[in-house]
């Protein structure tokens, strides 16, 4: 029951209403009973159509009555000539239209109409298209009608081109029509797909067969037109979200290529870690490991048992296979499902080795941002900046500017980006946590980029108001991490992907949970001063980090626990330097 305002009424009005309802109820119950009786007696005749019509015309949601009608219609079909059948179903279409006027959002009505069209000897798709136009004229957001229209369009041979014009007309008459923008997003990739990648003819699946239809992109020429359409909309009404959502999609691009992004091998522990460009299930994707030409039987495991799918998978090599420093080894990991692999050589005298993509910002983080020529993006940025001058409080514009800056030069624009995030939190405080998390994500991306350029294995991001951690799969090789003086509340299970981590500093946060400090084989030193670790049980996962020797827990509520020192030394016997 939606949108029925509760009215105050007098006792007399109440009484009148009660009487009227009683009358209606009686009529309803007697007709319903008559219908049920007829149906159980197996009667399939005109009277059944008449009685169900009486009920459905005021209550079109009663699915069972539509079912009964279909049974009757199917029966009558067998008794009549083709022309009569045509008439029978045309009457039915007329009746459905009456019901749609009562409730234009009735699932049952729209489904029945689809069904009737499959039974009509000569369906009239032009008339159906007309019905959709009228219905969308009354409510341009009626998704039932949009869905029905799609089936009509398919049957009636309306071209994608014509359909695109249709959305343009609707958007032109009202920019605030999210349904039309949505529909455009489904049409464009069909009409103007980007040119196929030249190198790999076998990697572009047929659009209809792929579950990732949504990620199919649009060619550049069309994109420019779309940018303009969106501009027109948000310059006309900068507070209408529809065009902004659409614009953010336009700025996006296809998913990252599926590949093994990194293989890491360590003599100590004789361990292999493999990172993928997306979360996978190692057992399901057919992962094969070959050491010096010999396929190995290994057991793959996730970095943390919470995950079934993960971008990082680990395994132990058979004991003794790579422990001798004087031997050189060649390792290959095959991702059989994707026909791809990655080699990694471990040279004499080396304790560890890795092989990965020399990551660039494009490859790493722009998967949600554009590959368009930077001159185009630069022009887009300028026009959004113009709009911001007119509308300095406009959150949509601020967010879009941030996204454009990231697409152009994430490091060069870092300072301005942070300032815009600050403004966003002020103009849209309801979503400040969203902006904080997004800002954290961008800062982490920037820090990873800087680390890559400097070719170091140290990740330092302190005093930046970080509220969340992400991209931890990119930190597989990091040995030292400094996250102090942020607003983190947890080290999430994904933290267990930092397989090379030796030193962790995370002082002065609000960390309550250390779930992610789990089986980190090289972790020696952890500093967690001034956090919110309360219970001894919060430290349990640390027991799985077998090299942990130094632990600083000063300024945490846990120190109030009775006998805490002896409890910790029992839980973590290898920790030699404990500060409480």
């Amino acid at each position, binding site marked *: 029951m939606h949108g029925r305002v509760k009215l105050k009424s007098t006792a007399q009005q109440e009484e009148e209403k009660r009487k009227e309802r009683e009358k209606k109820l009686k009529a309803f119950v007697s007709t319903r009973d008559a219908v049920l009786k007829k149906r159980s007696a197996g009667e399939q005749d005109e009277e059944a159509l008449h009685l169900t019509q009486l009920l459905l015309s005021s209550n079109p949601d009663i699915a069972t009555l539509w079912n009964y009608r279909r049974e009757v219609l199917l029966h009558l079909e067998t008794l009549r000539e083709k022309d009569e059948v045509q008439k029978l179903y045309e009457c039915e279409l007329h009746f459905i239209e009456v019901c749609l006027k009562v409730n234009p959002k009735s699932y049952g009505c729209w489904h029945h109409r689809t069904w009737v069209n499959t039974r009509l000897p000569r369906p009239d798709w032009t008339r159906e298209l007309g019905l959709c136009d009228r219905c969308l004229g009354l409510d341009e*957001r009626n998704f039932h009608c949009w869905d029905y229209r799609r089936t009509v369009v398919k049957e009636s041979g309306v071209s994608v081109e014509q359909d695109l014009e249709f959305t343009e007309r609707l958007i032109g008459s009202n920019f605030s029509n999210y349904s039309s923008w949505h529909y455009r997003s489904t049409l464009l990739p069909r009409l103007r797909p980007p040119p196929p990648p030249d190198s790999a003819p076998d990697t572009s699946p047929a659009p209809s067969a792929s579950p990732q239809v949504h990620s199919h992109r649009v060619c550049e020429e069309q994109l420019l037109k779309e940018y303009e359409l969106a501009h027109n909309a948000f310059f006309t009404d900068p507070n209408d979200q529809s065009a902004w959502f659409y614009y953010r999609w336009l700025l996006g691009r296809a998913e990252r290529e599926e590949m093994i992004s990194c293989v890491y091998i360590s003599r100590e522990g004789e361990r292999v870690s493999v990172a993928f460009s997306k979360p996978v299930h190692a057992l399901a994707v057919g992962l094969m490991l070959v050491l010096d030409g010999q396929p190995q039987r290994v057991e793959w495991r996730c970095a943390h048992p919470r995950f079934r799918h993960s971008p990082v998978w680990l395994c132990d090599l058979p004991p003794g296979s790579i422990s001798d420093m004087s031997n050189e080894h060649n390792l290959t990991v095959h991702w059989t499902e994707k026909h791809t692999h990655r080699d990694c050589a471990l040279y004499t005298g080396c304790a560890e080795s890795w092989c990965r993509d020399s990551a660039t910002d494009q490859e790493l983080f722009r998967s949600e941002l554009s590959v368009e020529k930077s001159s185009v993006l630069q022009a887009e940025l300028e026009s959004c900046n113009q709009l911001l001058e007119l509308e300095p409080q406009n959150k949509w514009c601020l967010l879009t500017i941030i996204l454009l800056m990231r697409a152009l030069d994430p490091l060069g624009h870092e300072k301005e980006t942070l300032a815009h995030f600050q403004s966003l939190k002020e103009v849209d405080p309801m979503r400040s946590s969203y902006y904080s998390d997004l800002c954290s994500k961008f800062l982490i991306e920037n820090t990873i980029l800087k680390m890559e350029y400097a070719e170091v294995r140290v990740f330092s991001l302190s005093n930046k108001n970080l509220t969340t951690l992400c991209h931890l799969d990119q930190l597989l090789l990091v040995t030292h991490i400094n996250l102090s003086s942020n607003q983190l509340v947890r080290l999430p299970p994904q933290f267990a992907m930092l397989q090379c981590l030796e030193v962790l500093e995370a002082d002065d946060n609000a960390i309550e949970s250390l779930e992610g400090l789990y089986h980190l084989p090289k972790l020696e030193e952890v500093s967690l001063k001034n956090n919110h670790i309360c219970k001894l049980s919060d430290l349990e996962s640390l027991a799985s980090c077998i090299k942990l020797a130094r632990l600083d827990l000063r300024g945490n509520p846990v120190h109030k626990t009775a006998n805490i020192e002896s409890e910790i030394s029992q839980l973590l016997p290898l920790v030699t330097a404990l500060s409480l």
Partner: protein
Amino acid sequence: MGTQVKDVIIKPDSPNTLLLDKHADYIAAYGSKKDDYEYTLSEYLRMSGIYWGLTVMDLMGQLSRMNREEIIDFIKSCQHDCGGISASIGHDPHLLYTLSAVQILSLYDCINVIDVDKVVDYVRGLQQEDGSFAGDKWGEIDTRFSFCAVATLALLGKMDAIKMDKAVEFVLSCMNFDGGFGCRPGSESHAGQIYCCTGFLSVTGQLHQVNADLLGWWLCERQLPSGGLNGRPEKLPDVCYSWWVLASLKIIGRIHWIDKAKLRNFILACQDEETGGFADRPGDMVDPFHTLFGVAGLSLLGDEQIKPVNPVFCMPEDVLQRIGLQPDLLS
């Protein structure tokens, strides 16, 4: 052509405390007025109505006030030869009501009063070549029914009865440019549908396929200045959408992206102080549907007077723990 934000204004004298006792009385009385006009006209969805009423009573710790035996007998009489369950006697079986019935029997811990194997056969029989599910034998396809199918099977512990890869593939084919989901491939994103699809992906262990940051943004943009959430852009706020958006955000680990205090105020303002129960918006007529989603929403927001609710099944967590079901949530 400036668009005005569609929203409601919460009056200063709107309820701002939770009136649990009144809500329990409202639900307890609702089912006893069997010759009531509203009650009779809602017969075609009775099974879901009972699920809404019982679940909200259980969340409020008042399940014992409902007539267990009568309800169980009613459910038994609604199972058909095909195995499917109908909304009421005289109505046809459908996945929607099959799920509701299985949810009710799970609350009551007596799933075996119906023929469980036949329910499983019924659900399996409705899966189509492309992995989608029809709601019943008349063939309407909708991602809602994909959710009904896997939620029913999960509660029965029979997830292996259907072609799971195909089922997942179909739901993913309904993902849109904004990260949301619609009824069928190409359909516009809608919060109710997003709830069904994220719930489906949770039950089937496939949440990593969701673009959580993009979808989370769309979902948190459903919050309006009144604090209430709408189901699509440029629509009015509604208590039931508050649940669907909130539960979806919880499932994808982004519930902190909305302003919880403002949403709580909105939900509380939708209570009727006289009759008990929640309406879609402040000042409208109450019903059991919005009463469940109001209370369940407050539970997800952390209200400690209410039992913790599971965001995927919209059932009390203790019931799911008893069954041993722990659907995935993103962190």
